[in-house]
């Protein structure tokens, strides 16, 4: 396998346009293998028509995000759960 990805921090900017909280420290559970870990730890493939974030364990697609001129498309079907820490 050849890897040409960056880490999940590449999702920070695009997701900041959609969510009020910083999701890079959010913990996600992979729908493919059940692995949990921070969004920043995902493998993000960005040389593509959209961003594709994969589980670092099983390589299943966990997050997809694309922008068209009129819409932002976010697909989380590969993510079973997402936990965000509240401000203390």
């Amino acid at each position: 396998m050849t890897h040409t990805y960056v880490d999940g921090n590449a999702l920070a900017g695009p997701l900041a346009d959609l969510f009020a909280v910083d999701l890079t420290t959010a913990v996600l559970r992979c729908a493919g293998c059940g692995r949990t870990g921070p969004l920043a730890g995902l493998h993000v493939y960005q040389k593509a028509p959209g961003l594709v974030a994969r589980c670092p364990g099983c390589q299943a697609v966990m997050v997809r995000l694309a922008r068209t001129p009129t819409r932002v498309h976010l697909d989380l079907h590969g993510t079973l759960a997402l936990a965000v820490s509240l401000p203390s």
Partner: protein
Amino acid sequence: MSIVTPGFHGRGRPAADLPPGQYLTEDFPVLSAGPTPRVPTGSWTFTVTTETGREYRWTWAELLALPAETVTVDLHCVTKWSKLRTTWRGVPLDTLLADVETAADFAVAESYGGYTTNLPLADLLDGQAWIAYSYEGEDLTAEHGGPARLLVPHLYLWKSAKWVSGIRLSHDDEPGFWETLGYHEYGDPWREQRYQGD
């Protein structure tokens, strides 16, 4: 909003014989939504599955034994680069589908690695599509979809599925990987059908 923007390779010079919104490139950018599959030809198969579930399967040796064509075509990527006069060798889908019994109107190309893309079955026929295994006289590299990829050059390049493993035929048009994320269900570059609703 500073969000995902196609066209990350920058702008080349515009050319009059390009589809609208496209720019000419001389290199061959590699786009990928995941790890590059390395599929040994010894275990490679290509499977056509009809709407009734009947399967027609070819091994690598069987594919190479079929009559092949060499074609020179232009490539148009939805991320706005175009590459002109690329030469490929492969087996026409007309040959592979000639004896397949089907009443389907639509096809889903499936790839090693899980990628999918949908298109009308008619767009795979009449000399419009190939299972390509050679590029510019050399074996097709894995980065560009080898050992074999679908080549449908009259549509945006995301329809030309890399690492193709089969074609699934259906009565229904089932959106594929990018088509479910806002991209156009057909993808004609000359009508600039990049996104849903274009």
